[in-house]
């Protein structure tokens, strides 16, 4: 049992803070949603700088542009990213988090040579989105029907994908398609393609959130021609490959959330101190409760990192951390609205309105978290996984 970081991680943390000091306005929390074009542009400029530090793809091997960081170094990096709100660290998320690692794992040499440097150097052409979900294939992913027909040395893709985040920012799409519609089980006959979003026949329709935020998109594929060399891995083996890729998505995601929660909490406490709200009976004890939950998220997330760093298999740990994050977001944003009161109603997409308190972060989290919670698999799904794998309970309906 030890809760002290090693020298290496402590140094990295200091380095990142130094970087933040030099490159980011400290009096303002950068807006990680990248809703506006200027925000996206700024994020991409930061991605370049992160790439120069080898942090953008920190856990990738050096040969692919990473720094071969340990799980703990990556954890420290992600926690700091969340706390300081470093834009561009995600670059649309898909490329860095699972497309790159998946290509390393089962992509051809050609794909490796072409795409890994684009991603790790923070290029606009290294921005990816992921096309898994369809209108009738949500939780039930294997139900997908987007069709890719082999014609000569090309695939002809037709179909519709939904809930694709950053599609409008991406050069590439990591697309799950059905290559064998006659496969006996619906899990068979699925393949993965790297699709150029500039191809003819690709149409993007934004899915705006109820408060106007543009993150998700529908993407339509109308006779889109994809060279056969863009097949990733083995034809019809896509289900297994996607499952492998999902594993890359699991472990560390709680760390950014941890940093973000800590930052927002710190801002809220500071605001409550400045306005005197911290003395209010209704606020005071609840703030303590949130502080406790954030510390708890920390030990849970760290435990998950530790298990991964030891090569232990994680099953219920990421769902546990995810469900707990959802609960914290609910609690944190609610107490936040109690602190800023009537100002909560100011447009959550505004960052610098004179009436926005704490740069609108409270409202944004308040309206956002439920949607994000669903996008990553509902909290109820997490509980089902925990019930079965951690508590050995029978499947629940």
């Amino acid at each position, binding site marked *: 049992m030890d809760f002290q970081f090693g020298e290496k991680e402590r140094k990295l943390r200091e380095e990142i803070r130094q970087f933040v000091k030099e490159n980011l306005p400290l009096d303002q929390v950068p807006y990680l949603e990248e809703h506006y074009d200027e925000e996206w542009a700024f994020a991409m400029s930061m991605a370049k700088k992160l790439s120069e530090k080898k942090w953008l793809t920190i856990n990738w091997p050096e040969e692919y542009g990473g720094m071969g960081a340990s799980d703990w170094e990556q954890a420290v990096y992600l926690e700091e990213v969340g706390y300081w709100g470093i834009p561009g660290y995600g670059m649309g998320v898909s490329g860095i988090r699972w497309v790159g690692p998946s290509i390393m794992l089962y992509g051809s040499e050609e794909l490796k040579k072409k795409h890994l440097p684009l991603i790790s150097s923070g290029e606009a052409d290294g921005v990816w989105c992921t096309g898994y979900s369809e209108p009738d294939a949500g939780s039930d992913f294997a139900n997908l029907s987007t069709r890719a027909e082999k014609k000569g040395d090309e695939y002809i893709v037709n179909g519709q994908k939904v809930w694709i985040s950053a599609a409008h920012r991406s050069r590439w799409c990591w697309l799950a398609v059905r290559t064998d519609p006659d496969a006996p089980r619906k899990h068979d006959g699925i393949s993965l393609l790297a699709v150029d979003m500039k191809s003819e026949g690709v149409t993007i329709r934004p899915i705006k959130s109820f408060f106007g935020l543009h993150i*998700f998109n529908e993407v339509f594929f109308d006779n889109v021609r994809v060279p056969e060399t863009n097949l990733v891995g083995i034809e019809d083996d896509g289900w297994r490959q996607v499952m492998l890729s999902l594993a890359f998505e699991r472990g560390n995601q709680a760390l950014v959330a941890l940093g973000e929660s800590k930052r927002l909490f710190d801002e809220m406490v500071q605001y409550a101190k400045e306005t005197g709200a911290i003395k209010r009976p209704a606020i005071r004890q609840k703030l303590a409760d949130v502080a406790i939950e954030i510390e708890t998220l920390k030990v849970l997330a760290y435990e998950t990192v530790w298990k991964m760093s030891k090569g232990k298999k994680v099953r219920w740990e990421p769902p546990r951390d995810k469900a707990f994050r959802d609960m914290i977001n609910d609690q944190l944003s609610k107490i936040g*609205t109690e602190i800023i009161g009537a100002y909560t109603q100011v447009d959550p997409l505004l960052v610098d*309105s004179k009436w926005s308190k704490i740069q609108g972060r409270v409202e944004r989290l308040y309206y956002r978290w439920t949607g994000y919670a669903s996008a990553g698999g509902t909290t109820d799904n997490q509980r089902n996984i925990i019930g079965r794998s951690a508590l050995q309970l029978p499947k629940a309906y």
Partner: protein
Amino acid sequence: MVDFGWSKSQALLRKSIQEFLKKECPSDRVRELAVDARGYDPKLWDQLAELGYLGLAVPEAYEGMGGEYIELMIFMEEAGRKLLPSPFFATVVLCALPIMQFGSDEQKQKLLPAIVDGQIWTLALMEAAADYGPEHIEMSAVKESNGYVLSGTKLFVPFANAAENFLVVARTGNGNDPREGIGVFIVDANAPGIQKTMIPTGAGNQQYEVIFENVQVSDTDILGQSDTGWEIVEYLLQYATVLKCAEMSGGAQAVLDLTSRYARERIQFGKPIGSLQAIQHKLANDFIWVEGLKNLVYEAASLLNIGEPCKTLVSMAKVKANTVYEQMCIDGITIHGAIGFTEEMDVGLYHLRTKSMEFDLGGSEFHRERIVAELEDQVPLFMSI
């Protein structure tokens, strides 16, 4: 005798309002008006006047329908159900009601018929502290020869841009008790020295900052006495609050309805998601809370309707409304899943509007404090027989 039923005329009124709003205020209209510069539909507003809804509770002597307070509650409950974007609450509830209660006969003769006819009014009460304690009224009303000069900044004034007149709460003096030395002034919205800036809100519901710079008001334009205006605010904190609660209760009922319908109809893995206990039990809890809210609002409205004092009950209803409406929306979004997050579903429309209502006329903390203060004063029943 205790009676949870509605009279025939009340039931009829509710039905008329429902039919009218169903036709004139579908959810797409709500979406459009949220990005409309005026934020309401003048044609619909005129209809509300023509149908008599603006004068629902105004005595016939002032050209109103002569209805009761509880009929206003029915209107607000239905308006809340459909998220009706209009200056109804600002005009009829925040201004006409106190004018009826505290205005001189002359003022009532002059002002109420215009309101019944469609003149828009609003109340300028809240200031930077964004709270409802009398100690937060800092705007000054300085006595001069012919009247008062108002200076200060008001926040979250609804429909300030559309209003032709304001009721403005300002400080005429400083007593030991912050409730003393407060006056409520009738101010022409276009008087020199008034500057209105829209506060952009998530709901697009026409909230304004209004700056008053040496605005002249004549002596005759005071509602009630120049130093007892707090009783008007206190009146609003009961009578207007319950109507806000009715609006919220209507909204919560609507979200429960549309979410239950979604849970019945949405099929996943071959069966309706409403057959999952996690979803069904969440909805069952929501149902219990919404039923509780609804009946609490009915109780408060029914007592206010007969002039029975029920300050604590009003505060209870507001805390309940704040809590239930918010949770109903969060559960509604969560049960809808990803699609609930989009602008296409109605549930988000409600979710985006709860916070404005929550803090309007007092947040939960404010009203809980009123409840406990009352508990502190009371001798408990078991010690008093």
